[in-house]
C-alpha cells in the first residue's frame, strides 16, 4: 500500500510539471539561468548530450557533488540521469534525494537486457520510449513519467516526432479495439493486460508524457505540444545556442501558447544562432536504440 501511495505521489509530481519545460544544465550558474528563464525543472548532468556524442566513450551518472551544487542553487525540482539498468547509480541518486531519476539512453547502458526495477525505489523515474510497447513496459517496471526518446544531442526533431506519432497512433488503435481483442494486443505489445486495458478505456498513457530529444527552437517545442506532448525536455538546444537565456525564455512561452502562431512568430525573432545540429543520416550512434 505504502508503495502504491508513493507511486501515486510520484505520478502526481509529473502532473505538476505539465505545460512546462525541463532544461539540461551542467553547472549551478546554468541552473539559475534556466530557473530564471522559466524552467519547471532542471536535469543536472556533467555534459549535455551533444557533447557526450562528440566526446564518445562511456558516459555515466554525474558526480553527486555536482548534482548537490545544482540542488542548492535552485528551488525547482532537480532531475538527474542514471544508466539504463544501473540500479546502484539510481540508489545513489535516491540517497541524495533527487526529485526525479531519468533512466536514460543518453548515457551508456549498463545492462543490455534488464532495466532497473523502479518499483523498488521511493523516488520517481522518467524513462524514454519510442512506441507504446516501450512506454508501457517502462511503466510496468515502475516509471511514473514517460518521454519520447527522440534523438538526443542532435537538434533534429524528426525522431521525437516519429516517436510521438507512433505512440499516438498505437493508442488510437487500442481505443478502437473490441475488448476481447485486448488480450492479443497485450501479447503483441509485450505488456500486461491491465495497462493495455487502461489505455483502451482512457485513450492515453497512465502517466504524464513529455517530448524529448532534438528540440531546438520554440517552433519545435510547439510542434511537439500540438502532437500531444504534455511538456518538453530541452537538452543541448539551449546551452549550445547563441543566446541561451533568450532561447530558453522563448521556448517556455511557446509551450504555454503552443497554438498561437502569432505569438510563436514573435518569440522566434532574433534568437541568435540555433545549435548547429546533426541530421539523423549523419550520426553513427543512435541512442534511441538503447534499451527497448
Amino acid at each position: 500500500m505504502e508503495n502504491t501511495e508513493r507511486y501515486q505521489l510520484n505520478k502526481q509530481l509529473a502532473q505538476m510539471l505539465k505545460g512546462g519545460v525541463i532544461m539540461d544544465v551542467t553547472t549551478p550558474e546554468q541552473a539559475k539561468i534556466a530557473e530564471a528563464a522559466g524552467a519547471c525543472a532542471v536535469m543536472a548532468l556533467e555534459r549535455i548530450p551533444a557533447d557526450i556524442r562528440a566526446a564518445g566513450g562511456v558516459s555515466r551518472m554525474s558526480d553527486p557533488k555536482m548534482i548537490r551544487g545544482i540542488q542548492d542553487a535552485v528551488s525547482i525540482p532537480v532531475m538527474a540521469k542514471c544508466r539504463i539498468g544501473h540500479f546502484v547509480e539510481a540508489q545513489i541518486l535516491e540517497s541524495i534525494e533527487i526529485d526525479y531519476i531519468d533512466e536514460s539512453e543518453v548515457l551508456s547502458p549498463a545492462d543490455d537486457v534488464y532495466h532497473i526495477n523502479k518499483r523498488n525505489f521511493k523516488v520517481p523515474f522518467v524513462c524514454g520510449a519510442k512506441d507504446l510497447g516501450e512506454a508501457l513496459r517502462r511503466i510496468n517496471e515502475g516509471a511514473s513519467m514517460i518521454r519520447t526518446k527522440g534523438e538526443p544531442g542532435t537538434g533534429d526533431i524528426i525522431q521525437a516526432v516519429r516517436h510521438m506519432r507512433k505512440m499516438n497512433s498505437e493508442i488510437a488503435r487500442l481505443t478502437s479495439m473490441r475488448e476481447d481483442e485486448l488480450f492479443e494486443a497485450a501479447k503483441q505489445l509485450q505488456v500486461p493486460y491491465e495497462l493495455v486495458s487502461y489505455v483502451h478505456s482512457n485513450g492515453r498513457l497512465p502517466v504524464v508524457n513529455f517530448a524529448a530529444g532534438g528540440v531546438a527552437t520554440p517552433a519545435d517545442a510547439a510542434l511537439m505540444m500540438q502532437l500531444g506532448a504534455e511538456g518538453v525536455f530541452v537538452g543541448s538546444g539551449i546551452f549550445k545556442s547563441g543566446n541561451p537565456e533568450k532561447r530558453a525564455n522563448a521556448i517556455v512561452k511557446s509551450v504555454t501558447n503552443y497554438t498561437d502562431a502569432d505569438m510563436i512568430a514573435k518569440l522566434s525573432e532574433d534568437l541568435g544562432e540555433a545549435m548547429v545540429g546533426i541530421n539523423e543520416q549523419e550520426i553513427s550512434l543512435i541512442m534511441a536504440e538503447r534499451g527497448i
Partner: protein
Amino acid sequence: MRIGILAVQGAFAEHEKVLEQLNIPYIELRKAEDLDTPYDGLIFPGGESTVQGKLLKELGMFDKIHAQLLDGMPVLATCAGMILLASSLDNDTHHYFGTLPISVKRNAYGRQLGSFHTISECKGLGDIPMTFIRAPYVSSVDDSVDVLSVVDSHIVAVQYENQLAMSFHPELDDDLRIHQRFLELVQNHAS
C-alpha cells in the same frame, strides 16, 4: 457562472476535470487576450510558482488579474497558487499578487521524498483527503485570516474574504467539497 483557470503551466487540466464533473463552464487563461472573456471566479492551479509568476508578468496578465483580486473576485488557489497570493514568502525573494495576508514557506516539506497523502479535517467540511506534492505551508497568518486546516501543527488551508488557498491539491483527489465551497463563494459574490 464561468470560471477562469490560470493555464500558463501546471496541473490546470485536473481542475478542469473537477469543474466538468460539477457542470461548471470554464475558460483557460494562457495570455492577455484570454482575460477579455468575462469570468466570475479564478482558479490558480499547482505547478511551479516561479514559472507561473514569471509568465503572468511577461505575458501581460498580471495587472488585470491583480485588479480583479483586489476587487474581490473569488479565487481558489492550490499549492503554487497559494504562493502567488501570499503577501510574503519566507524563503524566496519573489513577490506576486500579495493579496492574502499570510507568510508561506516554499518546499516546506523538502524534496519529492517529503511528498505525502493524508486525511485531515478542514473547517466546515469534515475530514477530506489531502495530497501534498513538494508542498509549501503557511508559516504565519494575519489575525483577519480564517485558518481552515492544520496538519502536523502546520497551517495548510486558509480563507481570507473571497480567497481560498491551500498547500495541498484537492484537484488530485475525488472529493469535490473544496471546489463546491469555492463555487459557493463565486455564487454569493455574483448575486
